[in-house]
């Protein structure tokens, strides 16, 4: 009986999350159709979807696995440029929605492979190494993309690290990536609907993973590594699993993001972007998927509304990071805030001293 109640509770929680996204999508669609949405906000729709996916996927690493990644934007970057290259190469050969889908899948795969390459050395180690390695990785990606010239022309697909001329694309060639200028001439394939679908897919993957054998193993590693090993759970395997899934989703989000603009530069996906996404996760609550969605949406929409406030935005983010951590991790501060949240209290063990009394 309890099991059914429990299942219902978990499922209900997830259904609310899915429902929230579907409802938001429908409302925006309706408002958009009736012409009630400003063009500025319309331009924000795809980025909002992208940031939601970024936040949810980072939450998999930070909240559910309990490791800090400071290079989430690096995976986004890889996905973005892979997606752009794929979309331009496929120009004219497949329909636009399919082209977008392929671009996103390829972006995801490349980012996932990068996740494996970064994760293997970093995740074997304890402590803060993953944070610093992912940070380094983000910088490496930015550096390399800044020196990369990619094009397609009469000699086919060409890559160079010297300059655009050395690509020898011929008369009708197209430069796809132009070193520090980034990717240019990007087809605008991204749509709000595709963003909505990516969010749903991300939620499906992350929420299903969380409530499963693999997800429990990941959380076991987070809660107590030594105990997890003692019950036969391979720590590295599950750390890698979570990290790679997280990187893969970031790659897909990156592809969607890039295909929403006509040009995109590597600088866009720097350390500050990684931190911004971390702020979404921390503010929404680590491990709390719905919180990430709300935080990503609000913090993406608000700055546009409060432009005057812009100078203080980053400062505010810094304060958010510090205060949320202090309040949620310091016993004294925790007790102080507990008084304000009596409603959300977990069942206390003192209730069950009497044995089987409850129900």
């Amino acid at each position, binding site marked *: 009986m309890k099991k059914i109640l429990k299942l219902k509770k978990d499922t209900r929680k997830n259904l609310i999350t899915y429902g929230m996204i579907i409802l938001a999508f429908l409302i925006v669609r309706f408002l958009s159709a009736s012409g009630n949405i400003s063009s500025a906000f319309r331009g924000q729709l795809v980025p909002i979807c992208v940031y939601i996916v970024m936040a949810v996927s980072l939450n998999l690493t930070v909240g559910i696995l309990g490791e800090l990644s400071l290079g989430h934007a690096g995976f986004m970057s890889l996905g973005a440029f892979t997606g752009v290259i794929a979309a331009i190469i496929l120009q004219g050969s497949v329909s636009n929605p399919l082209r977008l889908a392929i671009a996103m899948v390829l972006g995801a795969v490349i980012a996932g492979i990068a996740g494996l390459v970064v994760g293997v050395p970093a995740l074997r180690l304890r*402590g*803060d190494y993953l944070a*610093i390695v992912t*940070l380094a990785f983000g910088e490496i990606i930015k550096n390399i993309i800044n020196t990369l010239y990619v094009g397609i022309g009469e000699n086919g697909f060409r890559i160079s690290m010297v300059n655009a001329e050395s690509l020898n694309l011929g008369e009708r060639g197209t430069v796809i990536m132009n070193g520090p200028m980034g990717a240019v001439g990007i087809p605008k394939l991204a749509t709000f609907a595709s963003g909505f679908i990516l969010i749903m897919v991300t939620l499906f993957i992350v929420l299903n993973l969380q409530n499963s054998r693999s997800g429990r193993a990941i959380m076991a590693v987070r809660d107590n590594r030594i105990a997890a090993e003692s019950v036969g759970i391979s720590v590295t395997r599950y750390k890698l699993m979570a990290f790679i899934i997280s990187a893969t989703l970031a790659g897909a989000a990156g592809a969607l993001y890039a295909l929403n603009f006509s040009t995109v530069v590597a600088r866009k996906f720097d350390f500050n972007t990684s931190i911004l996404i971390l702020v979404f996760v921390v503010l929404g609550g680590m491990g709390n998927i719905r919180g990430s969605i709300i935080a990503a949406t609000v913090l993406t929409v608000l700055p546009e509304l409060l432009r005057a406030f812009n100078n203080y935005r*980053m400062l505010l983010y810094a304060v958010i990071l510090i205060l949320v*951590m202090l309040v949620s991790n310091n016993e*004294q501060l925790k007790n102080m805030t507990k008084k304000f949240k009596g409603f959300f209290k977990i069942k206390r063990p003192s209730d069950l001293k009497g044995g089987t009394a409850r129900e």
Partner: protein
Amino acid sequence: MGFLSYLISGISLGSIYAIIALGYTMVYGIAKMLNFAHGDVIMVGAYMSFMATAYIGWSPLASVVLAMAVCTLLGIIIERLAYKPLRNATSLAVLITAIGVSYFLQNIALLIWSSNPKSFTSIISLDSLRLFDGQLIISSVTLVTIAACIVIVYGLTMIVRYSKIGKAMRAVSEDKEAAQLMGIDVNQTISVTFAIGSGLAAVAGVLLCSAYPLLMPTVGAMPGIKAFTAAVFGGIGSIPGAMLGGILLGVIEILGKAYISTELSDAIVFSVLIIVLLVRPTGLLGKKISEKV
């Protein structure tokens, strides 16, 4: 001559990394945390020295003393307000807080001094050293930087090895609880460690901006991360390791810039980190730390 000149500027840059890395490595060894804001303390130190010399007209030496005093105080305040309440929290929570502090310092600096780069006048105004009939010129900043690094590493090693607070530091780094039981004030020891690390950061900031004279609120971020890489490279927790790692990293960076690619020099430096962690996770001079079960 070209190679020799690159090598010397590599050692000089590496000396700055080494001084910063000392702060990371000491704090990591004793408080077991990555003080992400360390790089930004460097920036604060550089601004202090800049303001003292450019606006108030202090002598360079006095400005360095001021910078050290302010940074030492800043280090202690950061530790008290942000890190001490999290002594028993997960390393994830501490790290996120540290990133928050780093961001906080950068953005406060941005509000105070704006993002326009200030041109920093070198605090060292000695003549350059000319060798081999002027074929090899070594600037005085380079020489002072290298000398400062040697003096600091020697001094710190002596302090850690022989002084009372040094012994307390080693005890706390081995086993916090046991040290406490032996009557060592753990909180005070950690504070002193932060104070020393931050004071050194001020020196590093002044030397860094003397060699690369553009002062911005983000000036400390990248050297900070590279210095942490250097600390890991040399073996986190080890003072000679920080020096070795710092100098090697500086040399790799300058030689990479000179002979491979300017744009990729950062990528090369960070690849070193990933390779080190793959091949020798404890670093060149580090020792294995095992968790108590």
